[in-house]
C-alpha cells in the first residue's frame, strides 16, 4: 500500500511540560499511504506526540519534517503547512454556531483554496460520501456523536490534506457509534490516505493499520506490523499492556 515518498519525519522529538519530560526523543518516518496506529497506556505521550506533528504542541527539542520542510524552523509558515495536515479530535470540535455545510466550507473559502461555489460543491460531495447529505443545513448540536465525528473527518478532507492525524477519534463516542466512524476511516485508508491514529481500538489497529507503534513512558517501546506487535510482542511492558486491553 505504501510507496517510498516520505510524508512526515521526526528526529529525536522531545517535549516537556513544566520540566516534566513527556516525549523523550522520538525518531520515526511516515511514508505516503502509511496507516500508523499509536497505542500505549494513558499518559504515555502518544497524544502529545500526535499533536507535535502539526505543532499544536511546540516541541522542546528535536525536529519535525513535513515533506522535507522542518516545521521547528521559526521562519516556516506553519499555517501553510497545516493546510496539508488534517486533524480529527476526540471531542469533534465542530463549530457549534455554523451549519454543517458552513463547517466544511469555512477553511477552504477563508484560505482562498476554493471559491464559495467550489467549496459548496465539495461539501455536497463529501456529505454524500458519508451518507449525511440531509444534514447539510443542520447545526452540530442536532447530530449524534458518530455523525459529528464523520463530519469532522470530511471537514478535514475538504482541505485535501496529504495526511490526517486522528486523536482518539472514537473515545468520546457511545459504543454503538464507534463502528460508523471506523468504517469511514477504513474507507479512507483503503483509498490510500496517509493516517496517524492514536487509538484504543485494537481491532481497528490490527485490521486497518500497516504499522503499529507502542509508546511507553515517552519513548517508542516497540514497533512493527500488526502481526508482529499483536502476534509476538517482545517487551514485557507491551505484553502486559496487551493482556489488559485485549
Amino acid at each position, binding site marked *: 500500500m505504501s510507496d517510498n515518498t516520505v510524508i512526515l519525519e521526526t528526529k529525536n522529538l522531545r517535549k516537556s511540560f513544566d520540566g516534566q519530560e513527556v516525549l523523550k526523543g522520538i525518531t520515526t518516518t511516515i511514508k505516503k499511504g502509511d496507516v500508523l496506529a499509536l497505542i500505549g497506556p494513558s499518559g504515555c505521550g502518544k497524544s502529545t506526540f500526535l499533536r507535535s506533528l502539526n505543532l499544536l504542541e511546540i516541541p522542546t527539542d528535536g525536529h519535525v519534517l513535513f515533506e522535507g520542510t522542518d516545521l521547528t524552523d521559526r521562519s516556516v509558515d506553519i499555517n501553510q503547512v497545516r493546510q496539508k495536515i488534517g486533524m480529527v479530535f476526540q471531542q469533534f*470540535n465542530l463549530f457549534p454556531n455554523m451549519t454543517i455545510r458552513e463547517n466544511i466550507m469555512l477553511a477552504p473559502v477563508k484560505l482562498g483554496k476554493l471559491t464559495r461555489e467550489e467549496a459548496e460543491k465539495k461539501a455536497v460531495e463529501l456529505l454524500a460520501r458519508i451518507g449525511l447529505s440531509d444534514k447539510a443545513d443542520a447545526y452540530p448540536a442536532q447530530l449524534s456523536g458518530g455523525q459529528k465525528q464523520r463530519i469532522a473527518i470530511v471537514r478535514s478532507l475538504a482541505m485535501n490534506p496529504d495526511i490526517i492525524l486522528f486523536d482518539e477519534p472514537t473515545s468520546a463516542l457511545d459504543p454503538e457509534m464507534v463502528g460508523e466512524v471506523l468504517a469511514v476511516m477504513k474507507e479512507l485508508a483503503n483509498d490510500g490516505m496517509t493516517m496517524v491514529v492514536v487509538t484504543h481500538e485494537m481491532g481497528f489497529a490490527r485490521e486497518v493499520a500497516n504499522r503499529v507503534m507502542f509508546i511507553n513512558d515517552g519513548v517508542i517501546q516497540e514497533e512493527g506490523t500488526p502481526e508482529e506487535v499483536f502476534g509476538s510482542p517482545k517487551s514485557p511492558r507491551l505484553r502486559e499492556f496487551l493482556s489488559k486491553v485485549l
Partner: protein
Amino acid sequence: MKRKKQILCLLLAGMALLGAAACGQSTAGTEAGQETETVQGTETAEHTVTSVDDLPGARIGVQLGTTGDIYVSDYESDGSGTVVERYNKGADAVQALKQGKIDCVVIDEQPALRFVEQNGGLRILEEEFTLEDYAFLIAKDNEELLEKVNGALAELREEGVLDEIKKNYVGAESEVGKYPYESADVERPNGTLVVATNAEFPPYEYYEDGAVTGMDMDIMRAVCDKLGMEIKIEDMAFDSIIPAVSSGKADIGAAGFTVTEERKKNANFSDTYTTSKQVIIVADEDAVQAGQTLSEKFYNSFIKDSRYMYLVKGLGNTIVITIFAVMIGIALGFLIAVVRTNHDRNGGFTVLNAICKAYLTIVRGTPVMIQLLIIYYVIFQSVTINKLVVAVIAFGLNSAAYVAEIVRSGIMAVDVGQFEAGRSLGLTYRQTMGSIVMPQAVKNILPALCNEFISLLKETSISGYIGFMDLTKGGDIIRSVTYDALLPLLAVALVYLLMVMGLTKGVNLLERKLRSNER
C-alpha cells in the same frame, strides 16, 4: 409572550409606585414624625430648637462646605451629641427638615427666606446665627485679576450700580425686581472670565428660564462690562468651586462665598460686596401646611417656565454620553481583551499586557466618580475642555476595563478545542479568533455586556459632579427651583427605568435570535 407580560407588570408596578409615593406625600409629615420619635427615643431626647443656645445636641442640617457647615461643625466634637448632616444642596437640607429627619437647618438668610416662602410649615428664628461678609474668590497666584475685580467693584459701588443690583434681589418688597441689570454694550477685547458658581442658592445664583441668574451673576456681568471681558458661567457643586478656581478651571468663584480664614488659605478674596447672615430654619408646628395638590406640583415641576426642558436636555446629554462612552468602552475593551488573551495563549505582547493589567487594576479598583473628578480636575486641569468630552472619556475609559474582562472571560469560556480545530485547518491566529472564537465569545458575553452598558447608563448620573447637566442634574435643577423633591426625582427615575427596560428587551431579542442557531 411571557416576557411581554413581565414588562407590562413592571411598567404597572412603576406607575403604582409613582402614585403611591404621590399619595404618601401628604402623610409624609406624620410618618416621618413617627420615625423621628422612635429614633430619638433610643438615641437622644426630643430636641426642639428655639434659639441658638439649643443648637448643641440637635441634629443640624447644613449645605456642605458653606459657612453654616463650618460654624456648626464646632458643636460636633464638644460632647453635646450634636449631629451635623451635610447636604449637597440647601434644598435637600430643607426637605429633610420638613420630613423631620433633622431638627433645624443653618443656612444663609436670603436662601432661607426663599425656602420658607416656598415651603409651608417652616419658620426662621429671629435670632440670627452669625453675620458675615460675602466676597468673590480668585486663585492665589492671580493677583492681577484680583486687583482688576476690586477696581471694578469700587467703580460700581461709586456709580450706585452695586446698590441697584442688591436692591433688585434682596431689597424691600417694593424694590425687588425693579432694577434688573442690563449688560452694557461695550467692546470686549480682554478675553473671557470663567465664573464658577453653584446655581442652587437663590437669590444669589439660581436657574431661571434655563439660564443661571441672581445677584452674584449680575455683579459678575457688571464687572465684565467694566473689564471689557466676555462672561462664561459654569455651574458646579459648591464644594467643587474652590478646587476649580485654584486649579484654573475657572477664573473666579461667585457663589455667596463668606470670607473665612480657612478659605483664605486656598484662595484670595475680593473686596466684600454684600453682607449676609446665617439663620436657623426650624419646623413651625403652628403653621398650616400650605400643601400643593399633585397637579399644582406637576405644573410647578414640569410645565411652568417649560421646566421639563431641563429633563429633555439632560436626557439628551445622558444618551450622548452613554452612546459615546459605550463606543469607547467596546473598542478599547476588545483591544485590551485581545492583548490579554493573546498574551495568555501565545505569550506575546508582554509589555502591552503589563500596561493593560495595571490599567484594569487601577480602573476597577477605584470608584468611577473619583475617576471622573480626577480626569476633570487633575488631568485636564489647565485645559479648557468641553465637559461632555470629559464625561465621555471618563465613562468610556471606565467601561473599557469592565468590558475587557467580560470579553476576556468570554473568549476563555470558548472551548480551547475550537481554537485548535481552527488552527489545525491552517487558519491563522487572527482568522481563528475572528471567524471561530469571537462569534461564539460574543454570544457568551452578550448578557454580561448589556448589563455593563445598563449600569454605565445609570452611572452617568454622577456627571453633575463636574457640573455637567445630564438627566439627574436636570432633575436636580428643577428640584432646586421648586423645592419639591417628589416629582422631579420620580420623573428622572421613571425615565432611567424606561430606558433600561427598553435596552433589556432589545438585548433579549438579540440573544434569542443568536441562540436560535443552537438548541
